[in-house]
């Protein structure tokens, strides 16, 4: 990769005897939006906190814009806007005071742009931080991360707690950053969020980076299931060759089918309509389920379907 803004090589961190991350190596190009995916406890936050020099690595190195994240942390932080996973700020200051404080500490903040961000995310800056809802607390840290137009945004589960409208606004802000040639590195455990925002993803599991690739690779692993019950038995072959169907399993002596899907369900719905349908349930597997399916080789069947469409 030419011109990587983030270079991670063999990064390892443990907490006493407990695993943090193991031998993580990764490059992120300048100008891209990189999604860092993984289930809870996989090591996303540890990696991010190592980049932010909040943790000291046991081994390996992390560089941002060619600067060592630990040795040159102050210079590195001039380039960064950061949203922590669990925002905690002075509860006695108002949102506006917090933003003013961090604007002073950072320097170079365009006040007009700051006001725009406050309006875009519909934040009331006159309330004390302790009085904010979870979503509004998240807005404060998001604004402080974006307000100085940093070259690199490091965002740890940035939309957690935001309502759909504000999530959309956030997507727009990331998009604009990318359009201006800036870089975003965001962690998430929500596939759809990463799918919308990112151009490339890395997947971490149990402290190890298991996959890095374009967003198209994500489509390959994003399967879901449909279970259809009929008033009478139907042949599995009626669904096996349809577009989007990866696997078919018959249930209840043939009067139900469970379909492993990838892609559009249009063909399946049309085929099912040929028979007397009693119910149809759809289940989008959690990321954990995806990991289980793709990274375990013990041949276990996926979990029972849940959720009703």
């Amino acid at each position, binding site marked *: 990769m030419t011109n990587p803004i983030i270079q991670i090589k063999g990064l390892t961190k443990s907490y006493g005897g407990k695993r943090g991350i193991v031998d993580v190596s990764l490059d992120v190009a300048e100008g891209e939006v990189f999604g860092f995916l993984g289930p809870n406890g996989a090591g996303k936050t540890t990696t991010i906190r190592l980049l932010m020099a909040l943790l000291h690595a046991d081994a390996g190195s992390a560089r941002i814009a060619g600067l060592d994240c630990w040795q040159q942390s102050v210079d590195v932080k*001039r380039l960064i806007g950061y949203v922590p996973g669990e925002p905690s700020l002075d509860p006695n200051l108002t949102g506006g005071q917090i933003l003013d404080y961090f604007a002073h500490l950072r320097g170079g903040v365009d006040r007009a742009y700051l006001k725009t961000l406050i309006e875009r995310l519909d934040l009331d800056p006159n309330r004390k931080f302790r009085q904010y809802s979870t979503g509004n607390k998240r807005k404060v840290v998001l604004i402080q991360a974006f307000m100085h137009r940093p070259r690199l945004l490091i965002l740890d589960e940035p939309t957690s707690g935001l309502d759909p409208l504000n999530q959309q606004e956030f997507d727009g802000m990331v998009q604009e950053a990318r359009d201006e040639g800036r870089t975003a590195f965001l962690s998430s455990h929500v596939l759809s969020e990463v799918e919308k925002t990112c151009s490339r993803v890395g997947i971490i599991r149990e402290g190890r980076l298991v996959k890095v690739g374009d967003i198209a690779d994500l489509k390959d692993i994003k399967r879901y299931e449909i279970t259809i019950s009929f008033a009478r038995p139907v042949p599995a072959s009626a669904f096996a060759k349809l577009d989007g169907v990866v696997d078919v399993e018959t249930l209840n002596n043939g009067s139900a089918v469970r379909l492993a899907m990838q892609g559009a369900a249009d063909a399946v719905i049309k085929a099912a309509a040929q028979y007397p349908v009693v119910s149809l349930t759809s289940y989008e597997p959690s990321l954990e389920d995806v990991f289980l399916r793709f990274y375990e080789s013990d041949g276990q069947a996926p979990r029972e379907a849940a959720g009703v469409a």
Partner: protein
Amino acid sequence: MWLSSIYLKSLRGFRVPILGWGLGLGVLMAVVLAALPTVLGTPEARAAVVALGPSFAWFSEPIKIDTPGGYATWKYGLTILVVAIWPILAESAMLRGEEDRGSMDVLLSLPRNRTRVALEKIAAMWTALLIMGLLIGLLTFAGGAKVSSDISLSAAILFGLNIALIAGVFGAVALLVSQFTQERRTAAGVTAGLLMVSVVVDMVHRVVPHTQWLSQLSPVYYFNLSKPLISGYSANGGAMLALLAISALSSGAGLWLFARRDIGGVVARPRFFRSGRGGSRPTRAVVQGAWSLRSVYARGLAMVAVPAAWWTLAIAGFAGWMIVVDKQTEANLRTVLQGSSLLRNFVNLGGGDVATNAAILGALFIFMPVMLMAFAVTQANRWSADEDDGRLEVLLSTPQSRLGVLLGRFAALSTATVFISVVTLVVTVVVSSATGLPLDAGHVAAATLSMIPLGLLVAAIGYLLSGWLRAAVETGLLSFVLVIWFFISYIGPSLHWPDAALRLSAFYYYGTPLVSGLPLFDTVVVVLAGAVALGLASLRFVRKDIAA
């Protein structure tokens, strides 16, 4: 078993304080009693103590102070109130702390009502206090038995029970106050202030005639009515019941309010106490120009400003009050001192007008650095709590070096410490002039300003400990060290401990500056020790993992 109920879970959380405070203060009483023959060993020494008693009556009523029980009650009856610090901290956090952490929401999602939850916690607190009282009582009895005193087991246990009751009163008040405050530390600070006010109000009737009615407003007055360690006296059942009633009323009011208010909110204060600000302003602009938001140092200064103002009031106010007391005591004590060289040695005082005034005041001024160091403990706690709560995370994502952040905050604390000391100096000079109590200005300056290195030493040690320990443990340990230092300096000289032992206490290096001026070498030692602690704290902080 310990996790089978809220009561047992809470009690489990109290096991270290029960042992720490119960055994710590119990051993103190045992040691004091066991070593009394060295203080009251000769008829002359006993006579000197008896002669000294009335002059320090403002501090504690002197009754049979030439006996082990009388001496211990006189000298340690008031200082043992330090045990109230723990219930104040614990009960201010009992409900408010759980709300701060968000764990109260989960707790109240259980099929138990709020009153039941709070009652189980209060019951655990009372169990802990009673066990503490029992430990103190048993060890006091053991100390008394060692010197063949006439302190009976029941009297010693009543002594411990009385301590548990007064501690319970201030714990219950902290619980009540915490219903009105958004933060537990505010409730703890207000209640600690009330404790100090109660101590002073109790003193008033022993200094100013016909003010018994005023002192009766203080719970400490009822605590002092019981003197079970003194032969011929006993616990005052009515007074103990009064303490129990104050506790029950305060806890009951706290419970009543807790059951009715919003979780995470506070009880609405009467309109008179509310600030005049209305609702949110419609503007979305960020207000600019506040001095306190311009740097880490300025923000640190703003954070410490309110507590520093209260502590200034307490410390400078205490200094002023001590001068008034000194003025009352001076004439009486001067006569006694002039008549007994032994007594002069006993209280380690000088003679002559200015010197005598300074000597009396110097004996009282030992409390001033203690208070300033207690202030430093609270501020060191704030530093480590900020890390525990994740508040340094975003701050350290700005282009500020870790060292700069630590030193900025420490500089703000240093500024507050200097401010408190300077105001105390000014108040001492003004009050001594106003009351006509002559004091050496240079020595007064030495006495007030040489507290600064002690305060900063404690703060630096707190910062150092926070490099490894969580805020609660760091504060507990630092408070414990402070109490140990205080008692080494308070009881060590009376028990003729060797100089090497006395040097273990930071107060040793404070000396008696009102009498003998600034102990330059010792002050330099404290400054150097503080600088080393701060240096080590900085080294640790720039290298450590920041808590998530």
